[in-house]
């Protein structure tokens, strides 16, 4: 199943590489947000902490851009039905999408995180390693939940509106955990272990939920 998931993720990445429909838009959105907030809170008291919260809000909303396109290529000519009728575990379809979504998020963050440090911090920002760990764990959670919700809303009337309506409330605990981890990474923080543990727990629970339910979401 893992091998099938990688084959399907590779297909999604190849389509994105050729069409450039998602990642460039995500990068533009997140960098624009960072620039705007940078000028809005420049020099204000507690601006570093506000920036940490803003970073996660930007990542969360940027994720919606890619999730709204998650099944677009599969629906154009009905190719999702080829996958549904293939002799593979349907959870492989979900896992393939999660891997592809994570790749998009990481590609966006490769630009967003250096920009975040550049705009808001000198040498006194949060410790990079815990923040990167939080980013990776949060990416996994966003992709896990997001693909599940995208499968639920794909093909639905006003699905692109329905997706954030369902996705955002479920993702709020994840983002709170990620913001906490980022804040605790500052030199005066209490350590990030608990927040990272929470993110890991969230990822595990939703991965299990998605694994068990995806089969039923890809049908009619």
């Amino acid at each position, binding site marked *: 199943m893992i091998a099938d998931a990688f084959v399907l993720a590779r297909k999604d990445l190849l389509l994105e590489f*050729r*069409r450039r429909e998602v990642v460039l838009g995500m990068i533009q959105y997140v960098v624009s947000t960072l620039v705007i907030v940078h000028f809005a809170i420049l020099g204000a008291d507690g601006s570093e902490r506000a920036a940490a919260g803003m970073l996660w809000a930007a990542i969360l909303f940027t994720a919606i851009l890619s999730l709204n396109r998650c099944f677009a290529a599969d629906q154009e*000519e009905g190719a999702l039905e080829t996958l549904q009728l293939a002799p593979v575990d349907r959870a492989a379809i979900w896992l393939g999408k999660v891997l592809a979504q994570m790749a998009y998020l990481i590609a966006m963050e490769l630009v967003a995180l250096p920009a975040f440090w550049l705009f808001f911090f000198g040498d006194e920002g949060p410790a990079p390693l815990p923040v990167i760990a939080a980013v990776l764990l949060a990416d996994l959670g966003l992709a896990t939940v997001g693909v599940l919700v995208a499968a639920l809303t794909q093909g639905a009337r006003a699905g692109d509106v329905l997706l954030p309506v369902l996705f955002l409330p479920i993702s709020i605990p994840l983002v709170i955990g990620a913001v906490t981890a980022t804040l605790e990474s500052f030199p005066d923080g209490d350590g990030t272990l608990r927040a990272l543990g929470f993110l890991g727990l969230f990822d595990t629970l939703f991965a299990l939920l998605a694994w068990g339910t995806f089969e039923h979401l890809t049908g009619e």
Partner: protein
Amino acid sequence: MPTVALEECSKRFGERIALRRVSLAAASGEAVALMGANGSGKSTLLRVVAGLVRPSAGACRVDGVPSTGLNRAGRGQIGYLSHRSLAYRGLTAAENLRLVARLHRRPASVVESALVEVGLEDRSADRIETFSRGMLQRLALARLVLAEPTLLLLDEPATGLDAEGVALLERLLTRWRGSATVLVATHDEQFADRHGDRTVRLARGEVVT
């Protein structure tokens, strides 16, 4: 080769009833032609058998198993030809078939031979978004050739094909006859006579003969 059995099968889309208490059986290796006007329920019936649509009432079984509950092997034996190509527009013909071959555990070498068989070998490296309707239909046929299904569900398979393409389709159907159970929806009476062991007619979602 699988058997197919629909028992009092109905399908409703909102207020619209697409299938009304349809009972139909196809024996192992039998070829059943489905005829009927547009909107008579042929496509819905095929999608129900494929397990892509859940019946609102009644049951549809493939080899005794509900079609929406088929396991991996059960799904893999189905070859479904739709009004759409069921392929990725951003991939080339060869890439689309390689993906199908990989998912069906078929060797990569079958891709080339399938493309040759349907006459797309010269366009194998082209993205299918540049393909005509007929070429997309040939690609869909190539998908069936390489997957070697034992239950063929063909929804108006001649749609978009030129004379050469129709001849190709007829050759393939003749080859598949006896090695697969076939349900084929068509408007063409002669086509139904040539490729069906019997014909079932639908009207407004009901079997009429």
